[in-house]
């Protein structure tokens, strides 16, 4: 008869072997996640990227404000329908632009504060904002393409009826 402690030892040994095999065959285990350190090169590249991202975000927000001014103040000679449609398009564009640029600004400021203060939480928040920025951009593109296809279909149907 096999003693109880021997069975337990065999189970533990097998588990340890399975774990070792998993670590050897799968390089994406959580242990390996800490191999990428933010060294001096990465720090310098991220700092420059964050500085330019901040410029893009600030200029984008200023551009959105300018678009609102132009939509309301400009084009006075046009008819009321033209003004209303240009204001509507400007508002939609400005809303999209403000959302995107806020995410970009959050990426830039969080990465900058994370790097200067060696704060892992701020760094992670910055990377999260970058992911959200690109995700929103992708979603807005999908929405814009869908709306364009819808308008083309409506326009062609309208032309077909005439």
């Amino acid at each position: 008869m096999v003693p109880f402690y021997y069975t337990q030892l065999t189970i533990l040994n097998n588990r340890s072997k399975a774990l070792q095999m998993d670590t050897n065959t799968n390089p994406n285990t959580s242990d390996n996640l800490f191999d990428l350190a933010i060294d001096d090169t990465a720090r310098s590249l991220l700092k420059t990227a964050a500085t330019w991202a901040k410029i893009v975000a600030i200029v984008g927000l200023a551009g959105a404000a300018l678009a609102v001014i132009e939509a309301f103040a400009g084009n006075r000679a046009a008819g009321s329908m033209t003004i209303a449609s240009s204001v509507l398009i400007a508002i939609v564009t400005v809303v999209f632009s403000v959302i995107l640029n806020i995410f970009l600004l959050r990426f830039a400021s969080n990465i900058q504060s994370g790097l200067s203060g060696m704060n892992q939480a701020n760094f992670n928040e910055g990377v999260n904002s970058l992911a959200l920025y690109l995700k929103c951009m992708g979603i807005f593109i999908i929405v814009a393409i869908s709306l364009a296809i819808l308008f083309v279909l409506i326009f062609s149907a309208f032309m077909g009826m005439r």
Partner: protein
Amino acid sequence: MEQQLPNEPLFELQVDHDSGTRFKESAKWGQFVAIIYFIGLGFFLLGLTFGSAMIVTALAEKMPLMAASGGLIIGALFIVAAIYVFIAIQLYRYCTLMRAAIDRQDLPTFHEALKALKNYFLVSGVVALLTFAWSLFTTLSSLF
């Protein structure tokens, strides 16, 4: 005697599980955006190549004073398209390299990905500044 603590922290920043996942998510969406950029730019360049003669003729009819600069405008549009192609390439490079860097935990690939991200924001920043200056000029000139 009291020993002063050094200013440098004990641990350096790392790409941990959370930031690694976010980097990969950004790469996934960025790749989609870059592919849409490529498709859009492809259509724009096709239109510009085959419609350039039409654009120059229309420009000569509508604005006779600008007729001589038609070629210049087409050239400028090709340069703008080339700049956007560069931006799209940098975004695509960031996405593919970042995915590979996180999967393989490879530091040189991670550096290359960050370099592509830096180039993407750098060129986008310069383009944004120039576009803003141009739109500010046109808005002010239309208002006053």
